[in-house]
């Protein structure tokens, strides 16, 4: 376990905010407390953001596990550069990680720059499938699996920068420390809980190269202290093209695309994916869909407001010397591409899970007919008081015997009135 999205039952008042907000209707309120259906959850963290009582929180890494790893590699997410006040010596950031006890730092932005090139090439080489969809946001990938399986084939078959950074970092570290793979631990400093999902439940058939996902906000305090210390020598800069990935639209810009759609926020993404399914976006090359406000800078583990973070990143892009020391992996794009390092294979079993199972149409039609019969009895207010987000969801739950008609407050009130009249 890396970190957990912890749910504090004591703090939960059963207010239904999270349940209504959830884009996949994964939350129900049972007996006055929120319950998440893990099968439906896409780790978008909307519930964490909206909960007024802070019932959801994240438990950070167990420090004992960290001790047992011989060589610890940190992979700071691109959003980290948006978290520091303007004018902060950005080239100190990677050095600060070493001061925190990591042995090696591999900036995610380097991998992001490489993937930007790969996206550009993929779009030019593969003209068959349109639009291609970014794999960077695990919540979006999960949404596609869960709600838009017909678009699985539109996912661009490239790993996300986190994964590529981890692969390349491992390779580097083995050379530098002359050690075995199992002596290395790769820590991703994450802007959001969804990245954990990408590690524990990757889209491809291969195991993730990340070992642990550390919420950015849990180490930010110590990190910033180190960054501010003047004695630290400049270590290395992020890739300016790479850090664009932290904000919505940045991938496309960094890949120098001109025919793309950039969208954030689950509701908006759902609108766009509906259009793709209807065949209206065949003329678009690329869709950059990110779950959080303004992209990854909107992730719950960031400390800075997403709009301010965007401004900070723009400032860095404008005021940093492109030529300061980076990583020479950036010059090896062709080599990596030819070796197929960037390629993502979408697991067959995934498609099997979501697509290929034979259904009994007759039974399925009977099921939705019965659900609609139940729906007709419900008031259609979608008030959420029963503990389900909509009357339709409640009708499904009743059909599946997870809930009862009488759980509806409106029906209950009517029943009570009728009883009174009888008396």
């Amino acid at each position: 376990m890396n970190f957990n999205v912890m749910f504090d039952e004591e703090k939960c008042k059963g207010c239904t905010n999270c349940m209504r907000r959830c884009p996949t209707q994964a939350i129900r309120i049972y007996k006055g407390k929120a319950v998440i259906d893990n099968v439906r959850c896409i780790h978008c963290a909307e519930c964490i953001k909206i909960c007024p009582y802070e019932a959801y929180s994240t438990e950070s890494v167990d420090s004992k596990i960290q001790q047992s790893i011989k060589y610890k590699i940190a992979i700071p997410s691109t959003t980290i550069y948006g978290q520091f006040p303007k004018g902060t010596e950005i080239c100190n950031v990677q050095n600060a990680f070493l001061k925190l006890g990591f042995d090696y730092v591999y900036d995610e932005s380097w991998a992001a720059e490489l993937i930007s090139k790969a996206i550009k090439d993929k779009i030019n080489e593969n003209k068959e499938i349109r639009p291609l969809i970014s794999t960077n946001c695990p919540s979006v990938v999960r949404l596609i699996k869960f709600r838009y399986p017909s678009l699985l084939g539109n996912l661009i078959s490239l790993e996300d920068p986190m994964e590529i950074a981890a692969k390349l970092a491992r390779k580097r570290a083995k050379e530098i420390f002359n050690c075995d793979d199992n002596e290395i631990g790769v820590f991703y400093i994450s802007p959001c809980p969804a990245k954990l999902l990408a590690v524990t439940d990757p889209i491809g058939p291969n195991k993730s190269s990340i070992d642990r996902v550390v919420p950015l906000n849990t180490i930010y305090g110590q990190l910033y202290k180190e960054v501010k210390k003047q004695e630290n020598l400049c270590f290395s800069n992020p890739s300016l093209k790479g850090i664009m990935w932290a904000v919505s639209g940045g991938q496309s810009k960094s890949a120098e695309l001109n025919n793309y759609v950039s969208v954030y926020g689950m509701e908006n993404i759902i609108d766009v994916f509906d259009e793709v399914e209807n065949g209206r976006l065949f003329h678009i090359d690329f869709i950059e869909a990110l779950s959080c406000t303004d992209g990854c800078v909107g992730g719950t583990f960031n400390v800075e407001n997403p709009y301010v973070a965007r401004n900070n990143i723009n400032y860095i892009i404008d005021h940093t010397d492109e030529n300061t020391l980076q990583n020479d992996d950036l010059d090896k794009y062709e080599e990596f591409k030819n070796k197929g390092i960037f390629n993502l294979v979408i697991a067959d079993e995934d498609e099997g899970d979501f697509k290929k199972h034979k259904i009994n149409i007759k039974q399925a039609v009977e099921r939705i007919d019965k659900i609609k019969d139940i729906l007709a009895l419900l008031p259609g207010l979608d008030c959420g008081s029963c503990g389900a987000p909509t009357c339709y969801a409640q009708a499904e739950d009743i059909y599946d015997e997870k809930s009862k008609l009488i759980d509806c407050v409106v029906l209950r009130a009517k029943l009570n009135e009728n009883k009174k009249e009888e008396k």
Partner: protein
Amino acid sequence: MDLLKRLSYHVLSNNFIKAGKGSSDIKSNLKSIGIDSDILRKIAIVCYEAEMNIVIHSLGGNLHCDIYEEKIVILTEDIGPGIPDIELAMTEGFSTAPDSVRELGFGAGMGLPNMKRYSDIFEINSSIKGTNIKMTILL
């Protein structure tokens, strides 16, 4: 085989607020039935194009989705003015959509060709009294 279920929608001419509601409802019904996603994608495309053609080019009509155990049939009927030259209308890129509609992003002239391409059986009849289209997608 027996018809298991029919979903029907009234489609209004020139109403871009409600446009697409029928196909979107058909899509969500078929999703909850659990239709294979590749097939669903085809149905989504043909349904949407057919519905939009009623909105844009006709005086109004109906959209139906018939569910059978072995196939899905999408039917449309409208009340005119009909398509004078079907072969021409079926040509990729041919469109009589006015500029006002093109500004909304429609009128690429790919609707009918795609409806044919994505359905297993495509049947069309048209006269000045109206256009009927029947698209069968095998499961």
